[in-house]
């Protein structure tokens, strides 16, 4: 039996090389050995397994750069196995874990645990960030260098803002020494204190304490001053407001080494979805108003927003079937990342390749990953998807152990038809 596989009849999308044309990919074992348009012009060699892509898109495997994987400690919400199955089903071949599970990733033993569980699970690739500060307490720096040697791709305190300006300055300054990336959850915590949702008419109507949109941009603006002082690489996570988009856009114009991402719910939903205290819409940062939503769409369109991450955060029923104030934040996103992102193509006419870049090459470049592009000798990680396949999201059918999606019943377009990790089909509807 051969270990060569030819993926033929595919619309090959590779943002790294600006490729968007019909072609083929030849895989040997776990690596790509050839790819392109002219491949197999003289016929497909013998002893090659053939996978007909039926004209679907073939893109580098999607990288979800924002996944909360609650193991260890939260296995009842999601395990490595269920998260990996969700990723594979959603066309995601690499996930990057945020260090805000019950056990913060502030020492190498946690990274070793993640690496071991990833090996045991062996479905998709699982990477991780380290914390900026020990125990995410915001005081003492983690051992960036040692954590990076053990695999940490960048440093972030997860869903906690690093609020202390002095500690942030030192974190950036120290990170710049090694060219490490600092990722901030941008929210001024004192201004957001006790806030349950976006401040505005809906919050007032529901009698819920609001988080003002300004809480986000003022943290970004402070950080940008510190970036100017230190020259460090800085990434603002899941931005959600018009003002944040403007601040990042201006910073880029000034040449600062700054990037940002957003999550699909920030360009899909607004705070009006919270009506009737729907706890599945409770998320951090909160869903904003229509003006902010449109600005996020615009930010993706004009390139200010560099990446899209699902911000996958599984929560079981016991964490959500509660009064809004008591409910946990979070939305599961691994399986809806692709179709919700593709809505920007179908509705807003963003070129497909520009959206795929934000899910592949852009996060790979930012985090120094070898994945995220097609190339000879590179890992055979790719996603074959039908951008036009229409389907209805059903919470009960999600592969995630937790079903906390506000998109239950939403009809979307775009589905992963085959997910290939290291040459293995970890999800397939076509063979």
């Amino acid at each position, binding site marked *: 039996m051969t270990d060569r596989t030819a993926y033929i009849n595919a619309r090959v999308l590779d943002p790294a090389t600006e490729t968007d044309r019909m072609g083929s990919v030849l895989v040997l074992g776990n690596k790509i050995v050839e790819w392109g348009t002219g491949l197999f012009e003289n016929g497909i060699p013998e002893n090659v397994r053939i996978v007909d892509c039926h004209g679907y898109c073939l893109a580098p495997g999607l990288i979800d750069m924002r996944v909360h994987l609650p193991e260890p400690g939260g296995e009842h919400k999601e395990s490595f196995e269920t998260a990996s199955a969700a990723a594979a089903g959603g066309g995601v071949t690499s996930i990057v874990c945020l260090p805000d599970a019950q056990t913060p990733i502030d020492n190498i033993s946690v990274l070793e645990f993640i690496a071991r569980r990833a090996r045991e699970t062996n479905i998709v690739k699982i990477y991780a960030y380290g914390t900026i500060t020990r125990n995410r307490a915001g005081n003492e720096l983690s051992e960036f260098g040692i954590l990076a040697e053990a695999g940490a791709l960048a440093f972030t305190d997860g869903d906690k803002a690093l609020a202390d300006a002095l500690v942030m300055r030192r974190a950036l300054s120290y990170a710049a020494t090694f060219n490490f990336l600092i990722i901030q959850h941008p929210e001024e915590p004192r201004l957001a204190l006790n806030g349950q949702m976006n401040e505005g008419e809906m919050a007032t109507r529901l*009698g819920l304490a*609001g988080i003002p949109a300004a809480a986000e941009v003022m943290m970004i603006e402070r950080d940008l001053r510190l970036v100017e002082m230190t020259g460090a690489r800085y990434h603002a996570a899941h931005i959600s407001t018009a003002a944040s988009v403007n601040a990042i856009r201006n910073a880029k114009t000034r040449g600062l080494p700054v990037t940002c991402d957003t999550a699909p719910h920030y360009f899909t939903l607004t705070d009006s979805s919270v009506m009737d205290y729907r706890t599945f819409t409770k998320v951090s940062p909160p869903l904003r108003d229509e003006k902010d939503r449109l600005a996020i769409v615009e930010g993706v369109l004009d390139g200010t927003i560099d990446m899209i991450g699902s911000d996958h955060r599984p929560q079981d029923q016991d964490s959500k079937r509660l009064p809004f104030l008591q409910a946990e934040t979070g939305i599961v996103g691994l399986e809806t990342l692709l179709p919700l992102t593709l809505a920007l193509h179908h509705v807003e006419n963003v070129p497909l390749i520009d959206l795929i870049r934000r899910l592949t090459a852009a996060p790979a470049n930012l985090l120094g990953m070898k994945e995220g592009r097609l190339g000879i000798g590179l890992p055979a990680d790719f996603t074959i998807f039908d951008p036009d396949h229409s389907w209805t999201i059903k919470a009960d059918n999600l592969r995630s152990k937790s079903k906390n999606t506000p998109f239950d019943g939403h009809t979307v377009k775009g589905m992963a038809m085959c997910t290939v990790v290291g040459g293995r089909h970890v999800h397939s509807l076509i063979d």
Partner: protein
Amino acid sequence: MVEPAPATDLQPLRRHILGMEGVPKEEIEILLDLSESYIDQNRQDDKKSSILRGRTLINVFFENSTRTRTSFELAGKRLGADVINMSVSSSAIKKGETLIDTAMTLNAMHPDVLTVRHADSGAVQLLSEKVTCSVLNAGDGSHEHPTQALLDSLTIRRRKQKLEGLVVAICGDIIHSRVARSNIYLLNTMGAKVRLVAPRTLLPDAIENFGVAVHHNMESGIRDADIIMMLRLQTERMQGSYVPSTREYFRFFGLDREKLAIAKPDALIMHPGPMNRGIEIDSELADDINRSVIHEQVEMGVAVRMACLDIATRNLSRDSAGNG
């Protein structure tokens, strides 16, 4: 025994009374008219009727209350129901039971009505979705307190013979107030002109979109007002400083005789209680029986809650007959 109140032709079709937002004028009028009939019953020697005979009412209070719980308890007893009071803060919650589990547990005992108070906005609605009986909201967080708004309107209507066109100034801690929100909805529906008077720290965002005129000083806020509703400064919900001191608050936003003179000569003073004397209202003024209707509000409270129990259980009968 008193005869049951006459059945109205048009009955509100709701099993739960969770809030005043979106409740149409006709339904409010039915509730107020029915409440009127219960005032008379409450003033007789024999205050007891039997229209809720056999029914079980449980007052489930996740947040401490004396007056509202007592008011519901009396309302239930005067209609002939069996009434149980439950202070959940002191039992199940401390053992880690969730709101929904508490709801299911109570529901299994076949109560007919639950009156529920909870410190979290939306908690009463959540509970109502899990039970088969009627649920009356006795106050949820900063969201709604519908029976308080109804009793306020009943009090006003009896004194002023109308609600439409009256200028009602709601003063003080609006941001934390479920009473204010329910009153804004109800009074707007009934055609009153609602003003809010408070420092900016005590007003929630975008409140001007709720059909109210916002004032930041008492002089303009209560000028020519027919009704002045003072709210309690809810220090227990305040994290940090919303106002510098109670002394300063009283100086600028407390109601005293001097400020009262700006309102109409026959303006009425209301307060949902419990009062902070000397903080939002001058102590002597609160006791002035010519101006203050604070005790009348308490009396109306029992009548309004009887009407709400009456209506809710009428709809319940239909539900249990197989239409639910």
